[in-house]
């Protein structure tokens, strides 16, 4: 068995003097999909940010392989055309331009490639953040509320890329208060 893509070993997280969770263990390996659910404010986003290394655990250790993060922040330059804004991250990661074009295609954004990011609608912006993750070619995807703002066709496209990613040996950790398409292991926070 290969090394896990993400593992939490006895992890506790405190925020603002409040315990969000304690002694949490989880492992995401190749092909796994873990769905974080639970009511608002229970710490789903914080767990994602902890997995991404943007928050520090109060105790325990987190191991992760190369990953990509999509949260509710767009992280694309608003004045640039969509394709160029995505190419910036591609250049930073020394990736191939082809990946950006393929990601635009799979998320149904090709016709928006030359449209400035600031003109995208909320749903299109969500697709754009997902396209950034798809183009990164990282093996682990951390998705915070990936369904927010997506229409039915967008959800279908997301389901497709998730299935392809997991079939190709990738892992996904997704936080969502709605049911996600496909087969997922559920982790309910707040219990």
């Amino acid at each position, binding site marked *: 068995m290969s090394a896990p893509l993400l593992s939490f070993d006895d992890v506790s997280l405190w925020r603002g003097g409040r315990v969000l969770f304690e002694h949490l263990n989880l492992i995401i390996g190749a092909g796994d999909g873990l769905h974080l659910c639970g009511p608002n404010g229970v710490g789903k986003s914080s767990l994602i940010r902890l997995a*991404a290394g*943007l928050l520090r655990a109060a105790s325990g250790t987190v191991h992760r392989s190369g990953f990509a993060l999509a*949260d509710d922040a767009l*992280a694309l330059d608003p004045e640039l055309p969509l394709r160029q804004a995505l190419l910036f991250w591609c250049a930073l990661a020394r990736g191939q331009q082809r990946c950006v074009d393929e990601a635009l295609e799979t998320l149904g954004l090709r016709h928006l490639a030359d449209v400035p990011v600031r003109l995208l609608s909320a749903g299109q912006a969500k697709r754009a953040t997902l396209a950034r993750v798809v183009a990164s070619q990282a093996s682990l995807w951390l998705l915070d509320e990936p369904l927010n703002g997506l229409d039915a066709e967008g959800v279908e496209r997301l389901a497709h890329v998730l299935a392809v990613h997991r079939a190709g040996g990738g892992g996904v950790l997704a936080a969502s208060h709605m049911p996600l398409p496909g087969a997922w292991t559920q982790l309910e926070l707040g219990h």
Partner: protein
Amino acid sequence: MIGVLVRRDLRRAFAGSAWLPMAFFLLVATLVPFAVGPDARLLSRIGPGALWIAALTAALLPIERLIEPDRASGMLDQFAVHGLAEESVAAAKILAHWVSFGPPLLIAAALGSTLLALDTATLWRTMIALAVGTPALAALAVAVAALTAGLPRAGALAGILLLPLAVPLLIFGAAATAQSGSGALLLEAAVSLFIVAGAPFVAGAAIRSARS
């Protein structure tokens, strides 16, 4: 990777408002003759100091666009996700900010000196002192921008933070414009180096602590 960051910041600066500090600097330099009168001897005596004050106030203008937009749009988080240290991001921002701020300011100083009746020798000394000081002003601006990013009334707070920190620079920088100012120039360079070397670490720590 740092090169990609610097290119992005330069593109954004020159497509946006890189000319604004320069215009502001010239405006402040223009106010001095109105305020103290057209006495050429008096103007040329206070001219270098007036240019320094104009430079300090002009350094405040770009602060709000240096870090906050990238923090709010999640760019800083994504830089961390891509394995870039916050200190490297800050260093890239300082370099890019200096390129879009320092040389235009020197051009503005050359233009402004005609309003203040500076003779050629004094102008040269002032230009050298400003050239030595602008990297520190750029570094201070980025560090203060990182410290105040996301806070309410960040602009006003940034001014209160930056100006006192720039006082050593102002003291030695203004002294370096005098005829016997070579010692002061060395001290100004030392202060400038100290600030440029320390600022990426201050800014990096500020970016990190803003996350939790």
